[in-house]
């Protein structure tokens, strides 16, 4: 038998631990995705500038609301609190929002470019994660300037910064918000194995997300609305759903709205959702790829 026909040469890669090797591959993917993303840095700059427009209208709206009422606060939020809250949700959404992720997955299923990931010894979800981390890193590198400028200009609206442990929880909640947003949207994208077009599903998801994540208003404002179940209000229910952790939760942590035992329970719920969505995403991939090719060429 010739040496050529040996499938894998016993080189040093094979000897190295699996996990480390996976990490190496992942880091190379990250580096290459970063290079690819940098091609579009100009697009990011424009996109970031646009993101600040809606917040200006929100501030005007709430200024009008507060001037129409004689109350100093609404559901525990002063005018300054509301402005600080919106600025903070903008920051958290910079972590949790995944523009184009679900649609991109569905498109690659539809146009067949997904087959590359079936043929090559590479994990599709790991690749998507690397691509998204790269996307975010390049985005932050560009967006940090306008973000810093806006936060500096608006510093008067913010209460004094929280203590170090709270800051740590805040940072952890941002990372978790990224993972949660990623796995939720990636799972939606995998639905492309079953339906031709996921854009209407994604639109429905965005709508629910907008209402229940705290993007539109702080979700603890829903505490005044009863559900019909004695002693349970709408906010109590919403906090068990994943959406609030992608916008409301990190902002509320920074502003000191959630503390103590409640904070730890919320963190546990968030971690739980990240795990559930990660499993759902992988399950959808496995079932989807088995189904792939049952329809059409």
């Amino acid at each position, binding site marked *: 038998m010739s040496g*050529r026909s040996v499938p*894998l040469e016993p*080189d040093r890669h094979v000897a190295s631990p699996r996990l480390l090797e996976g990490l190496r591959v992942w880091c190379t*993917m990250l580096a290459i995705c970063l290079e690819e993303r940098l091609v579009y840095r100009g697009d990011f700059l424009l996109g970031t500038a646009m993101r600040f427009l809606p917040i200006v209208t929100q501030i005007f709206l709430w200024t009008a609301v507060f001037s129409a009422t004689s109350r100093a606060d609404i559901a525990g939020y002063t005018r300054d609190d509301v402005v600080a809250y919106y600025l903070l949700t903008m920051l958290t959404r910079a972590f949790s929002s995944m523009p184009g992720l679900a649609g991109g997955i569905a498109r690659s299923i539809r146009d*067949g*470019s997904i087959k590359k990931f079936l043929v090559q010894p590479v994990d599709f979800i790991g690749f998507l994660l690397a691509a998204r981390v790269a996307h975010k890193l390049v985005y932050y590198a560009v967006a940090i300037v306008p973000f810093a400028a806006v936060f500096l200009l608006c510093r008067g609206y913010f209460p004094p910064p929280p203590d170090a442990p709270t800051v740590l929880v805040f940072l952890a909640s941002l990372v978790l918000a990224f993972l949660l947003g990623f796995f939720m949207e990636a799972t939606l994208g995998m639905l492309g194995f079953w339906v031709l077009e996921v854009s209407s599903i994604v639109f429905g998801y965005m709508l629910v997300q907008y209402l229940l994540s705290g993007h539109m208003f702080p979700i603890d404002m829903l505490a005044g609305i009863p559900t019909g179940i004695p002693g349970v209000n709408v906010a109590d229910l919403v906090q068990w759903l994943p959406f609030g952790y992608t916008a409301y939760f990190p902002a509320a942590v920074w502003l000191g709205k959630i503390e103590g035992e409640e904070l730890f329970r919320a963190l546990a719920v968030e971690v739980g959702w990240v795990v559930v969505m990660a499993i759902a995403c992988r399950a959808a991939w496995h079932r989807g790829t088995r189904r792939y090719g049952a329809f059409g060429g």
Partner: protein
Amino acid sequence: MDNSASRSKSESTPVIEVEGLAKEYRVHDKPEGLAASVRSLFHRTSRVVEALRGVDLRVGRGEFVALLGPNGAGKTTFLKLLSGIITPSRGTARVLGHVPWVRENEFRRRFALVMGQRNQLWWDLPAAESFRLHREIYRIEPSRFTRVRDELVDLLGVRQLVLQPVRELSLGERMKLELVAALLHEPEVLFLDEPTIGLDVVAQHTIHAFLRHVQAERRVTVMLTTHYMKDVAALCERVIVITHGDILYDGSLADIVDRFTTHKIVTLDLDEVPSPARVARYGFPCEVRGPRVVLRVDRGRIAEVLPDILRDEGVRDVSVEDVPLEEIVAELFRSTRTRPVGAPAGAAP
């Protein structure tokens, strides 16, 4: 699994083994018109299309096989099954001892598939970056990677292109770099889906020479689909013709000509313009244009007809050729198009 993997290494075991492989697709019929479209929201009618109907095949190590067939014959479905992209409806297949659609990484490191133009290379980056990614995902040892990459790049004459963003390259240049990307990990089996489609003659020639070299040097088993007979003539000893999801012919290229043609083409340049009736004595006149005559002559009669022509006509020049491969294959495809479904595969009438 381990057992069969080690068995596949022996030279006697085929690299590709296929038995009764069948693939059915469910397609939805969308009738014409708006009203019908609305109705189809509630009652979708679907039917089953058989892309592949129980194919048997064995391919040995180092063989170069062409899959021919009209559009929709099942060629691409076959390659997709063998590379594990889709699962079959029935039947079994083993490639290098692995069931392809299980998609084990050990299997995926040992073969490559080139299908379509925007396949493995990153569109916005130079090909060198895609190559680097392949080095990691296929675990290619760095020194070996450099050696193989340089060799492949030089064979195809694309060294100066690897640092240019892929989107700026021409179709032919992209295909060459796709081939490099596919061969970096030195696969033992290579599947190519129409590798020369849309390329100019020079690029086709370069790719032919390259594939011949790679296959001879590395004993790679290659299976390609194509519509260009030039690919087949330049590369493949073995030809498999698929129509309607069945294998219609499996044999050498030379045999196809023997088996499916009954005549040869005789081209004559005469001293003077002949009368049609006169040349019709020798064979069927396909074309009479001035003193130039193209005749179809029965293969069995060539030996007796040629001396007659040379003796009785004023001949300036004569050539005797086989029917062009394109025509044979086109005839083969045509003859099966009307064949009733389920009829046994056989020679064209």
